[in-house]
């Protein structure tokens, strides 16, 4: 008799509710990889829908997709390349911040590297906007610094 995976804890699913009210299911073993989720499960029990106030329905499915692959040991360089291929810089930023909130280490590290790769070819102005930081140099200070480090700017692409 063909048997389905038994209802042991390994195939138990956890319900996650996003900040905008949508509910997604995730395997308990995948939930373990997200330390924030695991902590909430430890506090609230695994029968309750876990509320994730700072993660939204746009990004959670993508994160779940990543960890689905992770628990079957199928994360390869090719998979990771595909995973981010169609995401723009802002979409990756949202995922990265969500991974940070969820304390999902593997995804966090992968996305850090990916963002670093994307920023390599960007200008200083773009990075300021991306990180949301202010330029606290005076124009004179900034031009002096740029002059001193002119060698590091050789080969930079124009701002997109």
């Amino acid at each position: 008799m063909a048997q389905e995976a038994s209802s042991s804890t390994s195939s138990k699913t956890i319900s996650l509710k996003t900040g905008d009210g949508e509910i997604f299911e995730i395997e308990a073993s995948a939930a373990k990889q997200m330390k924030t989720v695991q902590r909430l499960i430890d506090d609230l029990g695994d029968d309750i829908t876990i509320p994730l106030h700072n993660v939204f329905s746009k990004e959670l499915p993508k994160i779940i997709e990543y960890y689905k692959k992770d628990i079957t040991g199928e994360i390869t360089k090719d998979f990771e390349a595909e995973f981010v291929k169609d995401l723009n810089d802002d979409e990756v930023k949202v995922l990265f911040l969500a991974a940070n909130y969820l304390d999902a280490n593997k995804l966090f590290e992968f996305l850090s590297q990916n963002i670093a790769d994307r920023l390599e070819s960007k200008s200083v102005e773009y990075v300021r906007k991306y990180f949301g930081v202010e330029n606290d140099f005076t124009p004179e200070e900034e031009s002096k610094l740029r002059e001193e480090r002119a060698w590091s700017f050789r080969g930079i692409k124009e701002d997109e």
Partner: protein
Amino acid sequence: MNSLGRILEFGYYSILLYSIFNSILNKEKKKSIEEASAAIFSDDLMVEIVSWLPVKYVMQLRCVNKFFNTLVFDPHFIQMHLSKSTQNLQLSFTSFENNSADFTKSEDWDSRWITLSIPDLLLQNTVTISHLSDSYYRLSRSPHYRWVIGSCNGLLCVYGNSWPDQYLYFWNPAMRKESKRIPLFFDIYINRNFDFSFGYDNSTQTYKVVAFYVELNSDSNPKSVVKVFSLGDNSWRDVQCLPLVPLYCLLGINDFHNEGMHFNGTINWFALDDINLDRSAAALDRCVILSLDLSTETYTKLLLPRGLDKVPAGYPPNLVVLMDCLGFCHDFDKTHFVIWQMKDFGVQESWLQLFKISYENFARENLLPLYLSENGDTLVLGNDRHREAFIYNCRDNKVEKIKIADRTNWELGNYYVESLVSTD
């Protein structure tokens, strides 16, 4: 009918207005969601991302704001960046080009510091050489003669000679920063049996250069003068004399591979076990490894494996660091080369013979192992006298030649990783 119509009209417009308001509210809600999602990066998160960048880009981002400008001096960030940078291990070489027809005049050689990416070589089978055409990385240019003594955590130590000055200095090529010159305490053209070694003392977190020269007198015991310069100091410090004479001083070989080998806070040299031993009796089984601990600045003798083949000093043995262990390689019978690894530093029983490989595979002798992959499968080797480098696959015994640099001679160097380590 009229009042019903009015009620309906009223109802219709209410619903219309209500749905307009609702959609505005939803937009606001959505906007605040987007704002929440587009939350500003905390300092920690920005630092995490930037720590993955190659040094050149970190330097560019110093123009972002004052926080980023001073980040490169933060010891925690430097360490964070270094630990990620070590994944991009490189081999450094010195490439030479001759500017005249006379190959024997060393003053006419231009030399440049170049690097080869190991991940590119092993994972993508490509030879990526950096800095070959960038004049910033020039070392020697007549009449200034320079060579790289050693490399440690992205910092290089360089010997320089602009007659009559002889000096050392520290150089971080990725940051394009050089330290001030440190005058040498002897003349390498007079005290010709000398050595420079560069390493890192974990206990005090200091970079140190060890320099010595040996006076070999036929009628009395060899005498050595050994001094250490710590980065941040202003002068050389005396340390204990060498208790044994390094093999290369005895044999009069001044090959740059035979410098002290830095490993995990120690500097190591081959030495004959008996200070009085006749140099003609110099054979591998009479050797030990003389090890200087950079934190205590004292010496220990490390024994070589038992039962070592009686290897004459034809091709002197070379110390190597492979797979994070100290080891050495030596020639066997001019037919093979053998690589040993000391799995536990200082423990004689932990010596393991890793390889005994026939030269036949390479049609070249006197090969120096440069890198061994973590899984032990792939060995990178070089012979700079003949300008040849190879990748050897240990499993299927396959050899592939690698071209380092066209038309020029090159000399083997050390491991190198980019870093933000300061030169002062």
